[in-house]
């Protein structure tokens, strides 16, 4: 395979694998920037994937080509509602946020599989018929080299993911809401003194993270697996968590990290066809994102600092 052919294969695959990670990692950015640790991203993604696939299967006849898009929106709402559990436990009930996140992960997969077994009588759903279509961007696809790499047979959801990252950057860094969000995550008492409703901001942030993780999960299921079973998400949520940290709790950084992790996944899949890489055991590619995250946290790749009040419940009047 020539270098160019290789790039024509790897680049679109990278973007396709990265899109769900981008959505979910940005969701994580919102939650953790407000000071609520969200280890439950995996469970929220599972819920999104399950609801997305379920809606797609049941309403494919009604909505036709629009089905996958409406399914993503429905999944978004479902996961947003599901994330309320995490919000209530960790913000109002002052639960340990990591423990609550673990519970969300267990609950997400348990509810989804329980329902799948009741509805379908087996461990996984049928295959969906209405997938997100791949399309060629007019005009841009004719640009030599770059055109076939970025603008041929692409998913609309990938463009949406990059759009969400940019919007998230704007919201977090250029709007009053973003400033409040960040201040609540750094020093909630100071924010409270300035009249910011800490509890409300944190609730909103967690719900946004649930909504985005729901989109991420459903996009992953509808583009990549096309059904839902116990292994559908299998660690994508934790990889998104890793992308968020590797991206230093910054939306654009998280997007970059997600793209890089998507690249590692694409390489692992395409490895048998690629010279040099094919001699390398794929296990190295599989563990790459996780090893890099540990290195980033250890400060070998720039210092990754979490928001100051991350993980601490805010108790009014406590010093």
């Amino acid at each position: 395979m020539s270098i160019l052919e290789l790039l024509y294969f790897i680049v679109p695959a990278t973007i396709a694998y990265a899109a769900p990670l981008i959505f979910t990692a940005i969701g994580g950015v919102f939650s953790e920037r407000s000071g609520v640790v969200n280890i439950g991203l995996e469970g929220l993604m599972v819920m999104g994937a399950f609801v997305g696939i379920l809606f797609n299967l049941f309403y494919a006849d009604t909505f036709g080509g629009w089905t996958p898009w409406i399914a993503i929106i429905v999944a978004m709402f479902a996961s947003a509602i599901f994330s309320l559990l995490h919000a209530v436990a960790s913000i109002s009930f002052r639960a340990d946020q990591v423990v609550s996140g673990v519970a969300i992960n267990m609950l997400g997969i348990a509810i989804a599989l329980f329902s799948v077994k009741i509805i379908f009588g087996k461990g996984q759903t049928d295959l969906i018929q209405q997938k997100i279509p791949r399309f060629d961007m007019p005009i841009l696809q004719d640009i030599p080299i770059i055109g076939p790499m970025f603008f041929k047979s692409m998913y609309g959801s990938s463009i949406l993911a990059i759009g969400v990252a940019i919007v998230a950057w704007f919201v977090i860094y250029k709007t009053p809401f973003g400033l409040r969000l960040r201040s609540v995550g750094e020093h909630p008492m100071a924010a409270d003194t300035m009249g910011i409703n800490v509890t409300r901001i944190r609730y909103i942030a967690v719900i946004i993270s649930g909504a985005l993780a729901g989109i991420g999960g459903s996009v992953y299921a509808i583009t990549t697996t096309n059904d839902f079973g116990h292994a559908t998400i299998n660690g994508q949520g934790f990889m998104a968590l890793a992308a968020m940290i590797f991206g230093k709790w910054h939306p654009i950084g998280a997007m970059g990290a997600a793209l890089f992790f998507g690249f590692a996944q694409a390489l692992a899949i395409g490895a048998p066809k690629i010279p040099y890489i094919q001699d390398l055991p794929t296990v190295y590619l599989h563990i790459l994102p996780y090893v890099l995250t540990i290195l980033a946290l250890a400060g070998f790749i720039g210092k990754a600092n979490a928001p100051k009040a991350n993980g601490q419940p805010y108790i009014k009047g406590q010093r």
Partner: protein
Amino acid sequence: MSNRTIKFLIPVISIFLGLLVGAIVMWMSGYDPIIGYAALWNGIFGDAYAIGETIRQISPYLLAGLAVAFAFRTGLFNIGVEGQLIVGWFAAAYVGTAFELPAMIHLPLALLAAAVAGALWGLVPGLLKAKLRVHEVIVTIMMNYIALHIVNALIRSISGGSYKLEKIHKTASLRSEFLSNLTDYSTLHYGILIALLMVAVMWFILDKTKTGYELKAVGFNDQASRYAGMNVDKNIILSMVISGAFAGLGGAMEALGTFGTMSSMGGFTGIGFDGIAVALLGANSPLGVIFGATLFGSLKYGANNMPNAAGIPIEIVSIVIALIIFFVASGYIIRVGLNRLKKKEAK
């Protein structure tokens, strides 16, 4: 109501609420909760065989719970029990197949290998936490996935492309004909004794040694401990290593007792994560861990009977367990509720 009673009531109320919501879920899905829970009960205590299998299931839960609880006492959250358990499982299974030794040496060696593997897996986050102040939660999560992928790759290369290691030699096995016969030919093995021994070991380390005192002190207040002349870094590393060793032994239960081998895995075993529930319910004390492991091990094994006897998917038990964690974690609100009740009574 004293503080002590409240501490005791929170897990009890949580279990009750978890089972109650589980019943509501069953009822809403069109099942009869009474038939469902009866099937669960029979799956746990129905006959000698079920009891044997339930006890067998409790042993890895005991060790996973100990691992989480031990780290908790030093103020560390070890979510990496799952990964430490997987590498322990692999190390034990590998030593079990690769060597031919007399049982007196082989079995202890396999157990030791599992403990060392788990300890090494715990050492990495411990070192990073102690030396570079890297938060252990994220590192241990990442270590879980690294363990999963590396062990799968090792199984493939050792077995020559297959997805399963060979069966371990009899000399490394924890299987016991006596226990098996006693419980109608269940797979009950000596692992439960090792697990209970480790509960005693944890109690002894924490309550009867200077090291344990230091570990707990660091958990309460690391700055005060440093001021008192304790080596905080050393204690953090030690805590993670011991925690990892417990988790590794949990893997050995599966390798040397239940399965006698290791197959490549598509996902996690879940035992490590359930260990968090066990420790939480048991308030991180050795006795509490026995209580938590017994409850969750029983629920997990008994659930296998639910699809056959009541037609209810086993996942209902996972839902109940997740809810119990949720309620225990939200103990603050239960405490507030109980205090309100107390005030009303006082009036």
